[in-house]
């Protein structure tokens, strides 16, 4: 048991930044993202003895936990970036704010598709497996989401992203 805690702790320290960045784009705010990552890591901890690929498991768990939370919420919670009022926002922070606002306009499952495909660089088949939908549906959702993103973000070059 103790050796599992050691290995798990090491994994959590190293992998949590990647999980957190995905969670932030999915949830849109820091507090929910932190909660989502902790819950994901908790699930991984329980499953740790039988998990062969903890990296893959964590990202599947993160995405499915996010969608499960969304389904449970009756209120249509809108992700919002937390902005420090009156403070200067650097370029990355401005991009993040714009991107989170744009992602918030998407259906949560479409949002998950984009995060998996473009932030996590997962192939279509893998995204389909994670979301339990068909590869064709992933492509459809990708196109729809990119079109919507382009509308929200102005003339962002979504065609480049489709390649």
């Amino acid at each position: 048991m103790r050796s599992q805690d050691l290995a798990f702790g090491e994994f959590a320290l190293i992998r949590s930044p990647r999980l957190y960045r995905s969670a932030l784009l999915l949830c849109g705010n820091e507090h929910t993202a932190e909660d989502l990552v902790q819950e994901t890591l908790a699930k991984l901890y329980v499953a740790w003895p039988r998990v062969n690929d903890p990296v893959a498991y964590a990202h599947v768990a993160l995405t499915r936990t996010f969608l499960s939370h969304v389904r449970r919420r009756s209120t249509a919670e809108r992700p919002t970036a937390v902005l420090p009022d009156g403070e200067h926002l650097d370029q990355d922070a401005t991009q993040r704010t714009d991107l989170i606002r744009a992602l918030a306009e998407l259906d949560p499952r479409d949002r998950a598709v984009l995060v998996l495909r473009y932030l996590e660089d997962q192939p279509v088949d893998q995204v389909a497996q994670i979301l339990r939908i068909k590869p064709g549906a992933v492509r459809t959702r990708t196109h729809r989401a990119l079109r919507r993103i382009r509308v929200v973000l102005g003339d962002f070059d979504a065609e480049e992203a489709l390649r």
Partner: protein
Amino acid sequence: MNNDNLHDPDSRHDLAVLMRQATRDVDVPVGRLAAGGLRRGRIARRRHRGGIGVAAVAVLGAVGLGYQVLPHSSGPATPSGATGPAAQPSTSAPAGPPGSDRRLAGAQAVLDGVLAALPAGTVTQPQIEGLHGDPSATGYRISLQLRGALVTFYVDDPNSMRRASGLSELGPGSECTGSQPMPAGCSELPDGSWQNNFSRRTGGVGVPASRTQNDAYYWSADGWRVYSAAYNATGEKTGTTTGAQPPLTNAELAAIAQSDVWFAPSGD
């Protein structure tokens, strides 16, 4: 909406770049995430087992570092997509332990050095990647197939993530002398470094513990850690068995782990 930043001529204007740029400077509460995940995981496990009550929460700082140095995808030739483009190795030498005047060499130099240090045998699928693409994780993972069997190396600053998350740092050999000693015991070398070399039977999901794995750990006196492993199979927990023994002995692994192939020449 101000989209000027979305049209940086230096970017490829694609969504992947945008997502990575937008999240690269996020302040990640690494310590809270890991400690919270561990705490909630323990609670969930107790519930699964029908236990009652909540034990005291262990902070991650008490966890220390385990002998499973870094979890990773099993099997050889992990596709880059498994860890994402951000995990691609930097060509520049990352920082290292504050007390060390040695710095890791660039990724290609490290890979070339390891390949040159291997004994004779056909090498296929050599790969090197940064450790999980996190800027505060300093190190490389190398995997290759030697005579058809998997060999892996990790080199890292074991305290880099601990510093980033505000955890106390571990000294050389602390993994040997802590409350959870390494398997088979460790030995301290005359220069203050530590090593631990051992073999074990391993299995995996759907794979009985019928394979042999040779391990060699090395903690340098100036704060670096190298973990190497050789398997008598094509993958760590997957694939087929390739022979009675792994392609490298403990001594051969240790010789590479304790060599200077990881570091940039002095003065670079």
